[in-house]
């Protein structure tokens, strides 16, 4: 039988029919024990520094959460008074009773730092979640719906030109300082970089050859999205989420620095750094800047390293 006969034998019509997705056929051709999450985990575990960062982070966060329930913890807002003299225990150097010393009005710095870490992490989590959700929704629409692209790009160009400083400051002044104000100030335009990023990713992935091929073979859109597009975006989203946390903490420090931070009865890392800054020129009181800054840096650095390592690991191209 010649080649020509073979070709003729194939019904011409069948060449132009959509091959429906068939789970069994797919298994037969491309079976492997590849699992996306297992590979991600394996690649991540190879990165020693990232594993260390993850460990540090888990320990630190666990401690932050359980700290108030441990024995012998003090109230972060309680002003300690010397029983014999009746005076406040101001600026007590770190000792057995006050592990990180006391601040300029006699509050326990150890308790304030952990309460502050909780506040800052809570703020960071809220802001990062809102940024990610709004960013992905807007970004996905912006990328998928071609008609929206022109309009959204113009809107983006206008909004992205409003300096962050102005947004933060204006909102902090219009609404009085509180946790809610901070969340609003940091999310009102904070989703912009995220949405542009997602939009660019969607535009790039949408028209990749393998997606075109999938579409030609009649793969349902839902399957394209869950199998072809999302694994790419998962790494991006995780990275953005992990990186949003150092960014939000930096934003909080900035607002505290310019005097628009949270009220002082609500300790936060930004507040504490700022209080420490005011005393830093007195050599013996520098511990009030050094302790909160160290905790803050450990948190932001471990999130940063972890986020980057995870996004590398979650990128399917590194799974060989």
């Amino acid at each position, binding site marked *: 039988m010649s080649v020509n006969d073979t070709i003729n034998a194939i019904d011409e019509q069948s060449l132009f029919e959509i091959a429906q997705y068939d789970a069994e056929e797919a298994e037969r051709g491309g079976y492997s024990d590849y699992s996306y999450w297992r590979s991600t985990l394996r690649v991540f575990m190879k990165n020693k520094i990232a594993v260390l960062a993850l460990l540090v982070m888990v320990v630190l966060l666990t401690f932050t959460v359980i700290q108030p329930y441990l024995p012998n913890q003090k109230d972060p807002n309680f002003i300690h008074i010397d029983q014999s003299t009746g005076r406040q225990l101001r600026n007590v150097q770190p000792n057995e009773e006050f592990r990180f010393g006391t601040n300029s009005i006699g509050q326990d710095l150890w308790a304030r730092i952990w309460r502050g870490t909780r506040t800052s992490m809570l703020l960071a989590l809220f802001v990062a979640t809102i940024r990610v959700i709004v960013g992905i929704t807007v970004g996905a629409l912006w990328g998928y719906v071609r008609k929206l692209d022109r309009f959204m790009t113009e809107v983006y160009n206008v909004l992205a030109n409003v300096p962050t400083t*102005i947004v933060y400051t204006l909102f902090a002044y219009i609404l009085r300082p509180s946790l809610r104000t901070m969340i609003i100030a940091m999310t009102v335009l904070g989703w912009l970089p995220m949405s542009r990023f997602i939009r660019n990713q969607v535009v790039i992935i949408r028209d990749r050859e393998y997606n075109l091929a999938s579409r030609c073979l009649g793969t349902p859109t839902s399957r394209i999205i869950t199998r072809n597009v999302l694994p790419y975006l998962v790494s991006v989203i995780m990275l953005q989420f992990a990186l949003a946390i*150092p960014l939000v903490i930096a934003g909080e420090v900035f607002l505290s*620095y*310019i005097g628009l931070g949270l009220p002082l009865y609500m300790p936060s890392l930004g507040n504490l*750094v700022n209080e420490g*800054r005011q005393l*830093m020129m007195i050599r013996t009181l520098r511990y009030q800047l050094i302790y909160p800054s160290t905790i803050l840096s450990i948190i932001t650095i471990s999130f940063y390293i972890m986020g980057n390592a995870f996004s590398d690991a979650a990128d399917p191209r590194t799974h060989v």
Partner: protein
Amino acid sequence: MGVPVENVPIKQQPTRRKAKGGLLAYSLKRAGQSVITILIVITVVFLLMRLLPIEGYFGDDYDRLDQFQREAILRSMGLLDPWYTQLKNFYVNLFQGDLGTSIIYRPRVPVAEIIIPKIPISVKFGLTAIGISLTLGMSMGVLAAREKGKLFDSVVQGYIVFINAVPAVVYLLFIQLYATQYFKLPILFNARNPRSWYLPAICLALSGIASYAMWIRRFMVDELNKDYIKLARAKGMSNTAVMIKHVLRNAFVPMAQTLPTTLLYTVAGSLYIESLYSIPGMGGLLIDAISRQDNPLVQALVLMFSSIGVIGLFAGDILMALVDPRIKLESRGGAR
């Protein structure tokens, strides 16, 4: 410093369609769009400023004034008119080139007179910092890529992580605290003492160094395995020549796009550094102006900053097209 370099490669999606009238037509169209963008931004900020509480306009005098005096002051500032009248007056004055006079920061002094003397100081620091960060950042990136996996590379990587992860003010505070002590440098800026210039200029360069080093390193590591580099090597080009003529030139293209924005924002001053070292530059002016509700001053600064943003983007696109002959700017089909 400014726009993160890492986002750039995705941003530029040059279309290769035929030019519709050259660079000039493109520039005119872009300029028109830019003006509209700036107008919208300042209008939005103008309206937001009107939402601020009235007490802010009196500063410490609020309690000393009675109802009628307050009203008289507000009326004289034009703040009792309906918002659209205020907006109209603002634009009429703006198009006559009048930015208005400061009302609280330095009462009755024209806004331009407040801003202009501050420009040279911020510009000097900004340019020095950009110079330092470009030279140091690029050479660090190149060396790290060459020494990939060795000690120097790890040090550079550690530096990049540190600068990117830790909030700027935290490390700036420690630098000010210990570097001044260790090197016996003055802790505050003094225009007549050149030694007081070192630290602020270096501090201003730190984040730029990190972002350039990161970009160059990553780009070189990706690029060195490509075919055209192998070909250049096979032709017998020296390593240095390959680096300079091929790799660095390609790596510079996305950098060229963000360079003007970074430059303009750096030159416009850094809030932290100028306030930590008491440098009388433009960095802290905006926040001062907003916190004292000095509307005309805020308005002028917002105009300046949004123009800087728009001009920076525009100049970046032009510069990128000049550096990379493959890129055509005209008719980019909306998607930036």
